[in-house]
């Protein structure tokens, strides 16, 4: 998906270090400071312990003529010291860490932008105040408090939302609400306004590379590791994007083929090729109107709109011959405009 040099570049871009992922929220640097504090205290202790262990092991190693010498069997001052010293340091760590924790759980005053999140096996759905729903892609404005109101249906399982760059994580228990807030400090989104489709494709790829990762961190079944999403942080253009995305999702003023291509680029291209090459799933090239043979259903002479719509909504219903053992496609919720877009896009790939 990502080429190696590109990965290295984006890592630098996003400011990741040897230890930490990129730090891109108002609390992430505080969390890193807690880490640094504990890290240096622990390193000091570790060095002392290891120096003593190795030092004694070398100095008092058994060799001809060497014998152990008597020394006190215990020492109250020493034992009190190494009980009290760690206790004090632990108290310092506790106070410092808990203070940061309270900062993490207290939503700052001011305007809060709420996004509804539905976690399900194995999808993240983000719903914006204007009604727009997008799967596996979270778009947020920079420098504004965003609060995610998350849920998982009570017939589903536990999921957990984790955005390393923001240092946030929250389990989503089925049958109840869970919330988490953050305020991004770095934008990742570059405008998509290239003149040619090729330019646009490159820009979208670039955006995908720059976006932060979002993971499900509570084991939720077979495709747990595929339950990931990308977090795009917008500059001042968030509302422009939101409006455009909304219109696009409704198919207002967009060429369906272009819409389909965009959906393809963000959702389908990991498994479906458009140049006829074999991938995890059947290629889109030449799919339209072709004969489809299945392992679990009678074959279809001409692949049409109904067939494509069904494949998007219930991918397991009919499995194309030769692809039985591949990972199943995750069903996603598409609206009519999006489905039409994909259909038109596949039509265009004769």
């Amino acid at each position, binding site marked *: 998906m990502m080429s190696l040099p590109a990965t290295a570049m984006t890592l630098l871009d996003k400011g990741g270090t040897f230890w930490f992922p990129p730090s891109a929220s108002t609390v992430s640097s505080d969390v890193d400071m807690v880490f640094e504090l504990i890290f240096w205290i622990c390193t000091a202790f570790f060095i002392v312990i290891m120096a003593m262990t190795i030092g004694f092991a070398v100095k008092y190693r058994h060799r001809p003529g060497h014998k152990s010498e008597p020394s006190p069997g215990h020492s109250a001052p020493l034992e009190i010291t190494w009980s009290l010293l760690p206790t004090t340091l632990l108290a310092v760590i506790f106070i410092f860490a808990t203070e940061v924790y309270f900062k993490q759980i207290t939503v700052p005053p001011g305007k809060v932008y709420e996004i*509804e999140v539905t976690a399900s096996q194995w999808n993240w759905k983000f719903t914006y105040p204007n009604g727009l729903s997008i799967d596996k892609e979270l778009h947020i404005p920079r420098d504004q408090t965003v609060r995610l109101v998350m*849920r998982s*249906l009570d*017939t589903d399982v536990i999921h957990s939302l984790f955005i390393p760059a923001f240092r946030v994580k929250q389990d989503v228990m089925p*049958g*109840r*609400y*869970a919330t988490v807030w953050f305020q991004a400090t770095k934008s990742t989104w570059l405008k998509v306004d290239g003149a040619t489709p090729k330019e646009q494709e490159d820009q979208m790829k670039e955006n995908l590379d720059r976006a932060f990762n979002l993971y499900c961190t509570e084991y939720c079944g077979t495709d747990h590791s595929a339950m990931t999403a990308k977090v795009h942080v917008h500059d001042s253009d968030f509302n422009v994007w939101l409006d455009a995305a909304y219109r696009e999702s409704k198919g207002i003023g967009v060429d369906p083929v272009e819409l389909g291509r965009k959906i393809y680029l963000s959702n389908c291209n990991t498994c479906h090729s458009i140049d006829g090459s074999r991938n995890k799933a059947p290629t889109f090239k030449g799919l339209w109107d072709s004969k489809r043979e299945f392992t679990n259903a009678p074959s279809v002479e001409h692949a049409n709109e109904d067939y494509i719509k069904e494949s998007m909504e219930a991918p397991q219903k009919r499995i194309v011959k030769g692809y039985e053992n591949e990972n199943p496609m995750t069903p996603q919720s598409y609206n009519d405009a999006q489905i039409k877009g994909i259909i038109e896009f596949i039509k265009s790939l004769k």
Partner: protein
Amino acid sequence: MSKHDEHHTLGHVMPASTLINVFLALIVLTVVTVAVAQKDLGPLNVWVALFIASIKGSIVCAYFMHLKYDKKLNLLIFGISVVLVLIMITFTIVDSHFYYNNIDSYQQSETFQAAKAAAASSAAK
């Protein structure tokens, strides 16, 4: 080695009168707990019932189970187990009081009702 008396009885023998008195006390307390339960004391109901049950339990432990006369170690073992259960219950209850708000608000929410209806209709299909 065997300095002990061959006919010496092991353990503490409980006098018959004590056994009968304990039994009567337990029956009386059972009657009391039933009688009190007929009155509605609101949230106090649970605590009164638990209080009486704890007294009954302590009597059973002390006399029927010989704990009063037994090695203190056995009392310690039993005591620790009871304390651990209390810790387990207290922590989970205190915690649940915080998160149950989220569940109630979830169940009253429109999204939940809509999802329920959707699930029901899809199941019907």
